[in-house]
């Protein structure tokens, strides 16, 4: 499905995740998230935010898994207590097909309920931290995207509080938005949970800096969509490694 979209499009295509991807189902726990990291590498993810489930096997296991990631894990408001510095890069800038996309990550305080997170991490106020990083992201970007693990209501509140965010890809709760929620000049999208849906947003940015013609599609990843054979093999290989 992702390959089809990339092959068919002249415009830049980004593949993003709003967090809580790595851990939950049996195989993902046994492999400490590596099966998902490898799958995301194979699918060509560009960036992900982090949620509490991602740290469920412990912070060190998460960081080990992320060493193998070929995509950025972004979190502007998660700080290591030991160093006082952000645990991950606060944002990433992706340049693709002539467009520049600034992608900030923001996590919710539920991150601290995971394993050893509360003794090693602090979660800063999302609104203040996004406001802090926004000017430098804005300078480098045509489109500013936030990957938010604040839940849908939290993502809407972020859009309400911070001017200058173009798109928020929301996660942390399970809503499936069949059309985008517009909060001021910000579009908020969210695509369900458990890998059952893929969200698609097609949108333009005019020279004046306004988003135009947003079109949302929710693709249900049902049995009628054939498994990618390489990914299916990857999962089988992991099942052999972690019976």
């Amino acid at each position: 499905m992702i390959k089809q979209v990339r092959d068919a499009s002249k415009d830049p295509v980004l593949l993003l995740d709003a967090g809580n991807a790595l851990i939950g189902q049996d195989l993902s726990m046994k492999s400490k998230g590596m099966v998902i990291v490898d799958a995301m590498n194979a699918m060509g993810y560009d960036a992900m935010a982090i949620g509490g489930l991602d740290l469920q096997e412990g912070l060190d296991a998460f960081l080990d898994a992320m060493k193998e990631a070929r995509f950025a894990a972004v979190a502007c408001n998660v700080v290591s207590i030991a160093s006082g510095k952000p645990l991950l890069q606060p944002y990433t800038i992706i340049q693709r097909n002539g467009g520049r996309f600034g992608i900030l990550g923001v996590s919710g305080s539920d991150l601290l309920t995971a394993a050893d997170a509360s003794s090693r991490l602090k979660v800063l106020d999302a609104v203040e931290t996004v406001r802090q990083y926004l000017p430098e992201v804005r300078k480098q970007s045509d489109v500013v995207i936030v990957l938010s693990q604040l839940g849908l209501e939290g993502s809407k509140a972020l859009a309400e509080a911070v001017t200058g965010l173009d798109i928020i890809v929301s996660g942390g709760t399970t809503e499936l938005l069949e059309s985008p929620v517009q909060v001021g000049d910000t579009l908020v999208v969210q695509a369900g949970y458990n890998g059952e849906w893929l969200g698609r947003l097609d949108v333009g940015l005019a020279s004046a800096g306004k988003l135009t013609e947003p079109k949302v599609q929710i693709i249900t990843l049902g049995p009628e969509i054939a498994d990618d054979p390489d990914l299916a093999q990857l999962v089988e290989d992991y099942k052999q490694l972690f019976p």
Partner: protein
Amino acid sequence: MTRQSYFKTLLAFTLLAVCVAACAPKRGPVKVTILHTNDVRGYTNPCG
């Protein structure tokens, strides 16, 4: 204010506005397709 100083002031403000517009970060135009997921929760096969 004399006519000459009025036009000098107007010219200064006009030049200032042009400079601000020219120096403002430029955005777009661009189109993008964003494919997105959230809360996949480790599922490798959601259909079974």
